[in-house]
């Protein structure tokens, strides 16, 4: 009964929170575009459809065409797919590793914790992008998938740090002690006692990792170390700059991809704060 109430209250706050409403609707809007990209895009992203080259947005080409006469809107919606894919896989992998490392460290404690914590702190100091750049630079063929993997593999440390701290505090709570004393198996304790209390943390970590992965991917793409055979928002910006869109005034080529990334990542951050307010009643008043 009590649990039920708690759940309802959580849901209630979730739905009522303005920040979550705004954030979620932005994400859903872009996700919708990404999902229905094949329907929405009337042209192949790289097909040279407009023989007049770059043209501003029109009813035929909603976001105009590129220097080569490619449909910017088609590239945009398909690029969104890459963005969400990178966020989901890269961010998901980062969270997963972070959780495994952070949780093991926090829960086991002792020497395991010392070692894992040291590892985390070491990797934390090394600038992720520098490593990513170098790895990407030496990969012969890069797909969106490998990009996701490498972003995930380098993004976990701060997630691990946060999860570890949270596990630490949960581990010493009464209800866990109680469960231990009652002879519950560690795994069961983890799943029945600790995991539910960590959910809020996990969700928030994932959201931040999601956003971080998107930004990292955009940076890699822009520098020319993105996927060698795909379309993404970062690549669009790279091409736009390479092909002189700033000077030629082809603003429709470089504004949409950046704006979409900003909107998506911004929405994720806003959602994160919204969730924080939901999970942490003290903050609700502001």
């Amino acid at each position, binding site marked *: 009964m009590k649990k039920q109430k708690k759940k309802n209250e959580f849901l209630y706050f979730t739905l009522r929170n303005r920040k979550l409403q705004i954030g979620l609707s932005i994400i859903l809007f872009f996700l919708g575009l990404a999902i229905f990209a094949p329907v929405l895009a009337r042209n192949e992203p*790289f097909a*040279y459809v407009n*023989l007049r*080259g*770059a043209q501003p947005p029109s009813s035929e080409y909603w976001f105009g065409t590129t*220097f*080569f*006469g490619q449909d910017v809107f088609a590239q945009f919606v398909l690029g969104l797919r890459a963005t969400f894919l990178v966020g989901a896989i890269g961010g998901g992998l980062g969270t997963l590793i972070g959780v495994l490392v952070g949780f093991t460290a926090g829960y086991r404690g002792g020497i395991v914790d010392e070692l894992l914590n040291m590892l985390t702190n070491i990797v934390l100091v090394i600038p992720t992008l520098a490593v990513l750049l170098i790895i990407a*630079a*030496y*990969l*012969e*063929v890069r797909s969106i998938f490998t990009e996701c993997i490498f972003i995930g593999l380098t993004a976990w440390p701060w997630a691990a740090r946060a999860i570890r701290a949270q596990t630490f505090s949960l581990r010493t709570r009464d209800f866990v002690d109680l469960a231990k004393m009652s002879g519950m198996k560690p795994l069961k304790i983890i799943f029945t006692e600790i995991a539910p209390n960590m959910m809020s943390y996990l969700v928030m970590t994932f959201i931040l990792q999601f956003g971080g992965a998107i930004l990292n991917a955009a940076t890699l793409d822009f520098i*020319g170390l993105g996927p*060698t*055979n795909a379309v993404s928002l970062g690549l669009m910006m790279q*091409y736009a*700059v*390479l*092909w*002189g869109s*700033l*000077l*030629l005034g082809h603003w429709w080529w470089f504004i949409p991809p950046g704006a979409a990334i900003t909107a998506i990542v911004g929405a994720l951050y806003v959602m994160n704060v919204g969730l924080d307010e939901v999970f942490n009643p003290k903050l609700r008043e502001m």
Partner: protein
Amino acid sequence: MRKLFVTALSIIMLASLILSGCATPTAETIIQTVEVEKKVVETQLVKETQVVKETQIVKETQIVEATAMPIVETFPRNETLYVSGAAWGPASTWNPFQPGSLANTTGTIGFVYEFLFAYDPMTGQMTSWLADSGTWTNDTTFDVTLREGLTWSDGQPLTAEDVKFTFELGQKYAALWFAPVWNYLTGVTVVDDTHLTFAFADPLYQEWENNLYNIPIVPQHLWEGRSEEEITSGANEQPVGSGAYLYMSNAEDRNIWMRNETWWGISVFGKPAPKYIVDIRTSSNNVALGMVIKGELDLSNNFLPGVAELANKGYVNTYFAQPPYMLSANTAVLFLNTTKKPMDDAAFRRALAFAIDVPSIVNVAYAQLVKAASPTGLLPSLSKFDNQDVLASLGYNFDTEKAKQMLADAGYVDVDADGFVEAPDGSKIELQVTCPNGWSDWMAAIDIIATSSQAAGINIQAATPDYGAWNTELQGGTFDMTLNNWASMSNTPWTLYNLLFRHPIQEQMQSGNFGRYDNQEMFDLVDALAKVQMTDEAGMMDACSKIQELMLTDMPMIPLWYNGLWSQYSSSTWTNWPSENSTNPTLPTTWSGYWQLGGLMTLINLKLVTP
């Protein structure tokens, strides 16, 4: 000590600035109105001379070791030429024997170090430079007469000994790029200060004459004490040469040259108009293009997509006022890996040549900035060596239907009805066409190659590995088909054919014949061409015709289009740029290796805009 000097100088300059009581305007204000510009320039001129004087005083009284190069606070616009497009990285070497890295300090060869001869691709003539004349006295002896009164910029005379010394460096050090000349060069003899003789055994005339305007002559008195490492790979940070400009200074994104007022060539060719040349490295097209439009950059040799549009509107000037706008610089060739199926089949290769939509590459990928190549691959400047009969019977053009027919005739049929043909033995054909990632014009081009080939039924996909990976595939021969344009503008068709049919076939093909086309007949033809005297045009034509006939029959690689000699300029400060309307047009380029192809003459012909 140098630091101290700079600091002292800075303080003096600051003091003089404060005394003169005016702030130096930035570049932007100079460009805005002409009247303002003039005024500004006058004050600056005064200031500059003042500063230079003070510099000299300081030098005389305190510092002996300091270089004579003055520090110019702000370059006067009417004495300075701003160029870009040659450098792709910060300056790192001024060693004239490192041609690859010299792009970053374009002018090291051409401005500082000079050659015996120059070559004018516009007229197809070798012109004398350091050498007054060069003649084959017999088949194996080449006599050179130097001009009188040649000097190095440090005042020492430039003599036949310097020339001999330079050539003999190649004999001593195999790592120097021109070392192979000693395969057929047997000795250099100095007759007197201005005369010397080269003796040969079985000379490669074509290569030799190419070398005459590519081997930079260095001063013996400064180089003879150097170690092998210094000569082959030293940075030579304070280059002393004989040429029209002196190296002044460099920063991460620029190199600065100052006119050599005592250059021997002033009396021969005239004085190059700009006193200073600032060579700017721009990483971004936007920057270069923007600067040209604003008149901040006088000449840009960057590849600037979209420049056609701006040229049409009159924002920038180009060599041609209409397509292709640019002169042609080199040939983009599609190398086919003849060791792989089905590229080992000449019939397939010829069909492919008809399947590729070159017009789209020209019009879409390059927005008309390039020209479709002659099937022989030779640049327009060498078009006199195109055999028109061979072209008429064996040439190719974009024709999807014909390509389909040729494939069918050769047994390539779509067996499994997937829209793509299978090889005569029934195996599937899945090929990749590659170029380095980020080379955006080529990336667009290979997309078109892939798409148009698919339309003809050949399953080709575009792929863009990184430069390193691409290069490994290229030289290791593991690619299917790939683009390459490494034969530079030359005085002889041999340069191109030497790249295309480089032999013998080795494990690593580093400088040509990447598709490993192994045909002794062809190799013999190219070797024969190498040994034709440059003066024997009929002989050259004959050799070229044979090469072209075999090449177009076997089609081991497909020349597609000419990459342009990218060049766009502003006439706001300097004028009299070469164009199709010039009486004696020269190459409007700053690329390294092109100064001796007329680039320097372009500077000499420039005139200041009279306001």
